[in-house]
């Protein structure tokens, strides 16, 4: 019974996490990754046999052999593995939070990721906005993302206020206009 509940819990966490990761929001992405790691950690927890009230800690260090013989013990190894996995995912989550907040700060906090994506897509050589020919875009001088982004960065630094989103070269808006 415990195993079934644990399995259902793991499945729910993984499903919810995957759904959240695929959403657009940045905070949802972070939460989704957190749920995914929790799901996998719980699965690791279940990989040792589940025993209630059987702590893997000896009460009496000197004659532990006797205690081992008389009492049921949970497997301590999965717990050590989970601890390591938690430490690693903690560090990575902190790193992603820093990245996301930095992206927010660099591009202006008003922009939600969809608009940011449109803004960056507008500089993307494969983004065929406004019915432009792909070869035109491909070899135009504006297609080198590295320089464009460097240029944008300078502009952003000078600006200190939220960026405008170009109304002319967004597929979303042009499709709604039609």
């Amino acid at each position, binding site marked *: 019974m415990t195993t079934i509940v644990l399995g259902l819990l793991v499945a729910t966490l993984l499903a919810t996490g995957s759904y959240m990761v695929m959403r657009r929001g940045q905070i949802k992405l972070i939460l989704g990754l957190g749920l995914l790691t929790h799901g996998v950690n719980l699965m690791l927890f279940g990989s040792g046999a589940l025993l209630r009230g059987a702590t893997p800690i000896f009460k009496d260090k000197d004659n532990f052999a006797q205690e081992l013989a008389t009492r049921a013990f949970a497997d301590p190894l999965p717990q050590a593995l989970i601890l390591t996995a938690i430490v690693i995912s903690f560090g990575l989550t902190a790193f992603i*939070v820093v990245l996301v907040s*930095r992206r927010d*700060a660099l591009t202006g906090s008003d922009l939600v990721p969809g608009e940011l994506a449109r803004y960056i897509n507008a500089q993307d050589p494969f983004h065929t906005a406004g019915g432009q020919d792909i070869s035109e875009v491909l070899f135009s001088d504006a297609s080198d993302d590295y320089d*464009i982004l*460097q*240029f944008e960065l300078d502009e952003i*630094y000078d600006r200190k206020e939220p960026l405008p989103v170009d109304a002319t*070269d967004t597929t979303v808006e042009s499709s709604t206009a039609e």
Partner: protein
Amino acid sequence: MIELYLRLLDRVLTPLLLLIGVVLLLRGHDAPGGGFIAALMVSAAIALQILSNGARLVRARIGRALQPLIATGLLLGVGSALLGVFTGQGFFAGIWWSIHWGPIDYKIGTPVLFDLGVFLAVTGATIAFMLGLSTNVIETTDEPRLGKRPVQHAAQPARRGEEAQ
């Protein structure tokens, strides 16, 4: 303006959290506790400081110590593992000494040193992350550049929006 009650709470809680951190660190080698959890306790204390006094003040106080803290932690961790190599017991072998001094009866060994290394490295990294998150990123870092000289935009590419007009 920082709330008054938060600052009052900080007066009481910060020493308490630091003390719990130290206790967890010292008993961690063969009882529940350990370097990582102690580091999180200490970082929680610093987080409270950031909330109550502001990140700028905390950075001014301990910001310069963070990188040496991480470095010392890494060196201590490797050093404690290498100690066993020098005594011939092998990499990561546990070596123990006992301290008996008056009422103090404490066991010290390479696992404790390793815990201390983990503690220092994790504390440094966590506080650096928190300070990075709580101050405005653009203002605090230098401007990144591709080359060694400032970028000269002799011919700026035309913006897509301007082209359309």
